């Protein structure tokens, strides 16, 4: 695979993955019943996440990436429901479990952090009490042990003066501090995997880096896996070793991050890369993807990206390309995945340079 890599590698390869995957989605469908039809938001998504691995899930708004994450965590907003496929957590299929049992099983294996750390913290509780809550309530620690554990976690996510901060309320902390607290809360349940839904989108760039550093450190030192949902390719390239690109509720390309970002084999991934602004470009014109995302209320014939695809051929409009392996972990759902050099407007090095900078 490494022969395909010709850009600079920022990302140390993930630790060799062994054992049971912590999270497997098999052909998961999520539908949202609406008054005027069923919105088929996630369409047969499969993905696998291991401990110690950082998996990125990218795509534009409405591509189903957040709902995929919510489905895995059994936190779908009503009235969205899983209508097909299975969710396997730590080797056990949770799809058929009773709700209480499923909650118990999922929360012992995985934790979730959210985009807006202010609304993700209870405004009426001291942050220390929020971090100590799971150790005290679920892990059965004594009050003092839970407090000690919470202080430990606050230090671990890089909060200074934890004794003092312990008694603070969420509104008294800065955005970066709040997201650290959220990570501490996620860690308090000792999960093998953290699902993160745009955890840095609401933060400014320097704070973004600090928060991503905390997550990266947890992965390297403690082997905590990460599934990161984002639309920010720069964040993905600096954080994730594996990448799934979603479009129209489906995974359209998956593989190692550096491979996907340097030699995309799906026109949508290529288009995403082209639309990343390049600060060194002489003309500052932002390239966009023409057209609009597909209407997920309607059945989609053929490839969902076909109406916007520069490399579209007749077959794309009638027959949906399956996610087919291109060797190793790399797979693409495109009829023309084998001939990227013949796509019009092929992706050059400039795109990659822009992302990795």
């Amino acid at each position, binding site marked *: 695979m490494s022969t395909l890599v010709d850009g600079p590698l920022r990302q140390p390869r993930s630790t060799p993955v062994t054992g049971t995957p912590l999270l497997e989605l098999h052909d998961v469908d999520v539908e949202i019943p609406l008054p005027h039809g069923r919105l088929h938001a996630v369409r047969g998504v499969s993905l696998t996440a291991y401990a110690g691995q950082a998996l990125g899930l990218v795509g534009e708004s409405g591509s189903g990436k957040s709902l995929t994450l919510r489905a895995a965590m059994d936190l779908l907003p009503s009235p969205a429901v899983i209508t097909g496929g299975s969710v396997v957590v730590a080797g056990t299929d949770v799809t058929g479990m009773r709700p209480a049992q499923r909650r118990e099983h999922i929360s012992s294996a995985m934790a979730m952090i959210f985009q807006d750390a202010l609304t993700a913290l209870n405004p009426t509780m001291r942050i220390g009490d929020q971090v100590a809550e799971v150790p005290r309530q679920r892990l059965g620690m004594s009050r003092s042990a839970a407090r000690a554990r919470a202080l430990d976690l606050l230090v671990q*996510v890089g909060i200074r003066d934890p004794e003092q901060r312990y008694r603070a309320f969420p509104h008294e902390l800065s955005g970066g501090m709040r997201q650290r607290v959220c990570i501490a809360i996620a860690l308090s349940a000792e999960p093998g995997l953290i699902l993160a839904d745009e955890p840095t989108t609401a933060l400014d760039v320097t704070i973004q880096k600090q928060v991503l550093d905390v997550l990266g450190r947890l992965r390297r030192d403690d082997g905590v896996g990460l599934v990161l949902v984002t639309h920010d390719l720069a964040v993905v390239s600096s954080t994730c070793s594996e990448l799934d690109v979603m479009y129209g509720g489906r995974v359209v390309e998956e593989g190692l991050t550096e491979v996907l970002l340097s030699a995309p084999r799906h026109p949508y991934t290529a288009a995403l890369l082209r639309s990343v602004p390049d600060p060194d470009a002489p003309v500052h014109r932002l390239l966009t993807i023409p057209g609009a995302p597909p209407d997920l209320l309607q059945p989609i014939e053929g490839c969902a990206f076909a109406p916007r695809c520069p490399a579209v051929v007749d077959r794309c409009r009638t027959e949906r390309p399956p996610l087919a392996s291109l060797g190793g972990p790399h797979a693409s759902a495109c009829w023309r995945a084998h001939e990227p050099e013949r796509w019009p407007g092929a992706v050059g090095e400039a795109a990659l340079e822009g992302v990795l900078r």
Partner: protein
Amino acid sequence: MTAPAVPVGPVEPLQPLQPSRLPWLRGRGGEGVLRLNPTLVIGLSLLVVIVLAGVLAPVLSPWDPVAQDLTASLQPPGNGHLLGTDQLGRDVFTRLLYAARVDLRVGALAVLFPFIIGTTLGLLAGWFGGWFDLVLMRVVDMVVAFPSFVLIIALVFALGQGTASIYIAITLVGWVAYARIVRGEVLVAKEQEYALAARASGLPTWRILLRHLLPNVLLQAFVFAMSDVVLSILAIVTLGYLGLGVPPPTPDWGSMISEGQNFVFTKWYLTAVPGLAVVVTGLALALVADGVVQRSGRR
């Protein structure tokens, strides 16, 4: 997980911490435990004056509120009677003070029971949804479909005169408002990320409800309760006026207005003064509610 401390960027200075648990009692900016705003100060002051007037009634007035003196009926103000006497020769000022005790107590208790019952049911309905929510909200619709005063009067009539009947009637009618308010707030709050996070972390449901949702949905119910106290006092006043209220000779503002109406053209203060007492009490409670909302930083 024994990772060393992660080096961090500059740490911003700590803001002073506040001991109160409920954010809307704590205020927004956060300096001081009781950062008051003018609205709240005026409202609380008025309320304190009214409560003290009731509590200190025996100290403030030498007269007995129920002792009749038919030789001194309908005296004009002055001559030892600050507001004159009523048709049975009882000191009006004294009765006004003692009535504050009765009306405030009945008003507060008549709000407390519906508040607790309605909040509990609304919390459960909003969280669990399903058939419980469906049935509860249809019951709410049925109660709301009647004019509340008519329903309260009918219930008191059926249950018989007395303060116990008033509590029961107002509770049976009043809980629906709290159930509705709290249910609506819970429907919003349970999709907030902190509620999702609490669910995701596998905490027991009772813990999520009591610790994560309840403190965040109480403000609306509290604000309504403040105005509901006034409504309850008005209900008591109305019942008293209709002869279904607090049994005589115990003074309350409603029966005072009712008894004074025969003399409204000659002794107007017999009705106007207790009426004014009701208005001022309502104003005080409304100001307290507004002040609390201002402190909470919402709306």
